[in-house]
């Protein structure tokens, strides 16, 4: 593989690497016919991210001629190549990336101002193909927003917050912080942020749903989205099914796939789920109340401290690991789950008798080593559904 990028695109590439570094430790680099793919997965394998830069993104792009080339390396070493992002655009005129598997060499050459030439030879490991299973077109809900809107939203939540709950109905989206257990909840500040449908470029809600996911990956994507100014699309469905954050441009496609928290004893049927979580939190309708605003609270009640009513949120029942969705196996012919790989992904759930409080479902990446002939006629779409989450833990659906 041999490719050359001009200055402004070097920055885009560097931002992409920075964005990926928010998720995972390792960067999977794979030159394909349809462009250069940069991928990563987080340590718990609950989040996956892929940037695909089409050949047009490059000044020159020569995919590998003979065999497939894949390699992975520590992201930090790639970040080191693009040391300071701010000055990159000013100083770097051209960047050349060469991957020579035979010679085991990955070279980044930065052509800087004043004829300065910086060459980075990176060591790497061979790797399998990293693929997540997802189907964004099949998701019931699609929201598209300018990155600024999401950046403003995320700002309302503290940096320490790990997970956020998002519920949608026809008119609005509500973000709330997700707190694990009730004891923590009485100490933590609860924040709700409400956005009207009008603020989104595209707002398609076919299912009133409420999902919980990690903010970290969203923040990671926003690093890139903010600098590129590209609108972000969110594709999601019922709780427990993966959520896809996506950015597209004529020369690039970005997909972040995040696990969402599944909820206990919840029917996995679309219809019964339809209006289930429709109007939760603004029960007290704070902004609109002008008359009935006061909630009496007597100090005496505090003595009997068990008097507080249960929080009006069913959502706080401890969610548990849900079985993998079988219907995501879109290209089952190509799945060959390797046991070793699966072992790393699985989390023992039912053994301890009591399921753990919370689990994000792993996205189950199978490692696939297709033959070169398969490789050459594969389209982008089929690239993304190589492996399936085959092992179903749904054997005992409820505790």
């Amino acid at each position: 593989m041999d490719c050359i990028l001009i200055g402004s695109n070097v920055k885009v590439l560097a931002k992409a690497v920075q964005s990926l570094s928010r998720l995972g430790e390792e960067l999977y680099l794979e030159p394909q016919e349809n462009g250069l793919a940069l991928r990563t997965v987080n340590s718990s394998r609950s989040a996956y991210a892929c940037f695909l830069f089409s050949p047009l993104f490059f000044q020159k792009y020569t995919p590998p001629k003979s065999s497939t080339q894949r390699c992975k390396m520590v992201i930090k070493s790639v970040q080191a190549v693009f040391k300071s992002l701010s000055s990159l655009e000013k100083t770097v005129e051209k960047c050349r990336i060469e991957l020579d598997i035979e010679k085991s060499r990955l070279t980044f050459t930065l052509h800087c101002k004043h004829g300065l030439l910086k060459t980075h030879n990176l060591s790497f490991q061979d790797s399998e193909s990293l693929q997540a299973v997802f189907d964004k077109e099949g998701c019931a809900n699609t929201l598209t927003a300018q990155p600024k809107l999401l950046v403003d939203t995320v700002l309302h939540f503290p940096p320490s917050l790990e997970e956020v709950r998002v519920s949608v109905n026809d008119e609005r989206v509500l973000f709330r912080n997700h707190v694990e257990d009730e004891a923590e909840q009485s100490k933590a500040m609860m924040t709700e942020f409400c956005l009207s449908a009008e603020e989104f470029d595209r707002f398609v809600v076919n299912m009133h749903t409420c999902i919980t996911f990690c903010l970290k990956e969203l923040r990671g994507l926003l690093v890139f989205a903010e600098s590129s100014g590209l609108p972000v699309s969110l594709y999601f469905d019922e709780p427990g099914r993966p959520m896809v954050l996506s950015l597209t441009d004529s020369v690039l496609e970005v997909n972040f796939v995040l696990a969402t928290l599944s909820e206990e004893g919840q029917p996995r049927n679309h219809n019964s789920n339809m209006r289930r979580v429709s109007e939760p939190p603004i029960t007290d309708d704070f902004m609109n109340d002008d008359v009935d605003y006061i909630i009496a609270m007597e100090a005496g009640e505090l003595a009997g401290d068990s008097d507080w009513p249960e929080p009006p949120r069913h959502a706080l029942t401890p969610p548990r690991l849900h079985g993998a969705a079988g219907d995501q196996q879109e290209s089952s012919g190509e799945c060959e789950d390797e046991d070793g790989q699966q072992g790393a992904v699985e989390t023992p759930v039912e053994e301890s008798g009591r399921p753990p409080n919370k689990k994000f479902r792993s996205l189950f990446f199978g490692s696939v080593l297709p033959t070169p002939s398969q490789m050459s006629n594969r389209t982008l779409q089929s690239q993304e559904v190589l492996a399936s989450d085959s092992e179903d833990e749904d054997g005992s659906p409820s505790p």
Partner: protein
Amino acid sequence: MRFRAKILDVGCLNSFTRVVNTISKLTKTCTLRLTADNLYFMLSDKVANGGVSMWCELDQGNFFDEFQMEGVASDANEIYLELVPENLSRALRTAQNAKSLKAKLTKKHCPCLTLAAELPSLSSVSRVVTHDIPVDVIPRKLWHDFREPTVPDFDVSIYLPPLKTMKNVIDRMKNLSNFLVLEANRSGQMNLKIETDLVSVSTHFRDLGNPPCDGGSQGASQDLETMAQARVDIKKLQQFLSSQQVNPSKAMCNIVDKKMVHFVWLHENASLQYFIPAMA
């Protein structure tokens, strides 16, 4: 017990935010006392706080466009809440360009001080952010812990030099010692001193001016040059100085010789008193 308040003016919101930010830098938890006219942020001098106490008084009329409260009883028209000022500060930070901010006492999963801000948006519908800050309602029988501290019978009262200067000096001294001796006299001189086995450092300020004598034991008999001094935990002093977001219109310090230092900050619409005990 009821409470509801509203801020519409951005300037008021900013100055209230600054006060809360200051408080949040000073203490992890504090008591918020609400009366019909005032708000108080208080920290009583428990040993757990290192003997430090704080008393911050705000006139609600200077901040709020609407302020309604009903205390626990008609003969005790007050509310005492314990809260984490950092939460309040964070909530206010996200409401910086709000069109309006409402605060009220609510009973949700636990008693909460709920702040709701209406934020500008790209559409006709405002964005709304709501923060439920958990609070503990302090029962009436414990209120006596939170009396207004009496101004001590000080030996010397002196105006402070620019706080930034003082902070810079103390930030350096902190690296050398854990304790600092603050001393001042009634002819406008103040010294900041540290003494360790290896080094003695002293910074002298003069012509600071003394507030007009109105009581205390600053009798005419006492010598104007005599220094009153207090040895204090340098970290507490540093924390106090760095909590300040804006220079107060007046900053002074009262020293009770070998017992305590009492700082008074006067802002346009708020006052803050801070007590640091002296160490042996």
